[in-house]
């Protein structure tokens, strides 16, 4: 069974009471019934604000960096994907495992809001609640209830998610989910892209990247983008100018894809944050696929695993001669 909001509230309250945590990072209802927003608690009293439902898209793990210097442990709610970025943060010494209390919640998929509204042909104001119901979402509307097949309205990353249950946690709420029935070939979309001609690819990405407004939401939301000063914010060397043209955008996005190579865990936050709907996951997935094929590497699984680009095998593929 999936954990309910009430279960989350009860256990967080208990964690505060028994002194296990001094802070908690979770979700609460946002500006409307289709939004949640990050919620920061300092005591168990407000735990009743917490929610856990299929709208909880945000990967909260990056907020842990803001709690480095607080007293006591910080509790945090993580889904399967979020737990993998926690692994990456641990791997890079960005957080201290002993100062974090991880409340894991197995996740059977998050709703893509835009897809849901389109499938139902409704405006957000009509939605009262969205609940998980096996292979469908149960959407409570002002005028009744509708079941919507998950495959039609899941977020892109959830359609290919192989780790629905957190890999690292101190307590797991709800039953572990071993696999999701709809997940097939993770990389079918990437393979389609790879098959295009150079010219087609260039046209496609030129069109996509020319839409970028360089708001840096993709970087700022990324749980593994943890540099205190990003190279793109430096005045010297200036890797990109502030001029918003496609050459600068190209450098930004390719370098970003490379910087998160072997660290990106496909939580999909970059793409979700992008106001211009640029398919950013595509770049990261491409790198992820290559790292798997070339070096048999998957990020966010094991804290002890050495990042693939910091090591080598003498017998690695050599195409270069």
């Amino acid at each position, binding site marked *: 069974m999936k954990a309910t909001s009430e279960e989350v509230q009860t256990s967080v309250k208990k964690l505060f009471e028994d002194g296990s945590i001094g802070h908690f990072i979770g979700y609460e209802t946002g500006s409307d019934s289709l939004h949640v927003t990050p919620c920061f608690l300092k005591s168990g009293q407000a735990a009743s604000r917490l929610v856990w439902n299929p709208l909880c898209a945000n990967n909260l793990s990056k907020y842990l960096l803001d709690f480095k210097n607080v007293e006591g442990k910080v509790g945090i709610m993580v889904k399967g994907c979020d737990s993998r970025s926690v692994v990456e943060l641990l791997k890079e010494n960005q957080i201290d495992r002993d100062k974090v209390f991880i409340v894991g919640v197995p996740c059977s998929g998050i709703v893509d809001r835009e897809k849901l509204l389109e499938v139902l042909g409704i405006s957000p104001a009509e939605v009262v609640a969205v609940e998980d119901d096996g292979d469908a979402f149960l959407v409570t509307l002002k005028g009744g209830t509708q079941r919507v097949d998950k495959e039609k309205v899941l977020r892109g990353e959830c359609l290919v998610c192989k780790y629905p249950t957190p890999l690292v946690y101190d307590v797991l709420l709800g039953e572990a989910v071993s696999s999701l029935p709809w997940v097939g070939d993770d990389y079918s979309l990437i393979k389609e892209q790879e098959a295009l001609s150079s010219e087609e690819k260039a046209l496609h990405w030129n069109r996509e990247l020319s839409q970028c407004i360089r708001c840096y939401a993709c970087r700022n939301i990324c749980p593994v983008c943890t540099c205190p000063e*990003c190279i793109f914010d430096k005045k010297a060397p200036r890797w990109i100018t502030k001029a918003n043209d496609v050459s600068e955008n190209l450098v930004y996005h390719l370098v970003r894809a490379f910087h998160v190579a072997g660290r990106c865990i496909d939580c999909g936050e970059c793409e979700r944050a992008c106001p211009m709907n640029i398919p950013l996951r595509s770049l990261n997935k491409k790198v992820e696929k290559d790292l798997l094929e070339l070096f048999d590497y998957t990020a966010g699984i094991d804290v002890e695993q050495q990042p693939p680009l910091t090591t080598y095998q003498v017998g690695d593929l050599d195409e270069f001669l």
Partner: protein
Amino acid sequence: MAAPRIGVFICHCGTNIGGIVDVPQVVEYAKSLPYVAYAEANMYTCSEEGISSIKNNIKEHNLNRVVVASCTPRTHQPLFRNACADAGLNPYLFEFVNIREHCSWIHMQNRREATEKAKELVKMGIAKARWLDAQEEFESEVYPAAMVIGGGVAGMSAALNLANQGFEVHLVEKEPKLGGRLLKLNRIFPINKDPSELVESIVKTVEGHSKIRLHMPAVVKAASGYIGNFDISVDEGGKEVSFKAGVIIVATGAQVLKPELYRYGELANVLTQLDLEQRLKDGELGEFQNVVMINCVGARIPERLYCSRLCCMTAIKNAALMKEINPEAKVYVLHRDLMTYGVEFEEYYREVKEAGVRFIRYTPSNLPQVIGAERVESVRVYDELMDMELELPCDLLVLATPLIPNDDNEELSRMLKVPIGDGGFFLEAHVKLRPVEFAMDGIYVGGSCRWPADIRESVAQGYAAASRAAIPLRQGLVKVEAITATVDPKICKGCGTCALVCPFDAIELKESEIRGLEGKIVSEVNTALCKGCGLCAAACPNGAIQQRGFTDIQLLSMVNALSGKR
């Protein structure tokens, strides 16, 4: 910091550059570039005249950066850096542009394009120079002791050489006896003498030397540190012994290949040359009438491409010896090519031929065949010169096999962080210019662990390695070129990526002690260990670690300059 004032010196190199590249045009172009305060052409910038022009113009034009466009930094950088230093300019404010090897010499047919390329290369050099910083070289003390690994003739020669110069030497030998491979030989060419006389006298001197501390039987278990300051731990007969050394000489030798060819190991009368020597030495050879020797067994084949060099002479030596023992015996040497380099060796070869040893050339496409059931009875060989197949009666078949790397080379290579090259032998820093040094400062190499070497070469290399090793020991201080890595602790996030990629364990994560950052975990570079490869700088996601002299901004400025950006 003062605004950059760059002086540019463009060399004609006689006609080497000036005959192809329009040097005055490049000078004029350089003058038009940002921050260039002065530019001139020189007939030879490296001449006394050129050097004094650099020095004078630094003063006259108040230059704070110097760019020389001439030949290659690999040979001339020190000269121009010194010129800057002489004129009071930090030598690291110098940048080299190569317009000879990389331009005029390779574009002799196209003067216009060569000139355009030279302009662009100069532009890139100037772009980098604008961002050069003054650097101080790191100095560290050298602990006045050496470790020599390997008690063969090369290692002993090195150890004695250093000990005689007054330095303390730790000699580590894994066998219970000094002497190495020499102990197994019967006679040594070309003097045809028993090696034991030679070995014993050296061993005695080594064992009796007050400056040599012998570790035997012992193997090196751990080595850390850097030039001047290695911490070593050896397992000496089950007991761990630790000591410090300023330098290390690797002279671990090699082993002889035991082939899986010509039914070696199966038929009793098939021996390797080394087996033969052992039997001769022990007086256990017995009667023989027809001796066939085959050279290049297991060498110069696809799996092992190299020539072991020594085996030809070994075969000639032993062939002669067989003739000496039994002048009636028929002795054939089947070879592919014969390596008898040097004056004595070719003469020795001629004498052996005159003594009646027959040399027959075979080809790898048509290998000799061993005939016989219990023992070798004959060897069938296609004689290339006579264009016919011969069947040689044979009661003793001797195989000349190559020296192959020791099995523990890889372990030692990892421990000392020195490279192994093709075929598993150790690899020196430069095949021609630095033959007995490793790229890793303070570690030297000699003898057959580098490449199959005979006794004379092993001794010479042992001496050579010792003489190179004596330089830092004698100076007592070492300087490291200031191209090492530095960390900006303000923006370092302590992820440890740099430490993971560093091949020299030169980077550690530590709590910062800098004011305002106390307690923050950041990377720290041990400059003495850093070799200036820059791997860390390339791996760091936000440029918090930089390689001096090859910083992001310097390299980016060059790329941008080439792209027409300023």
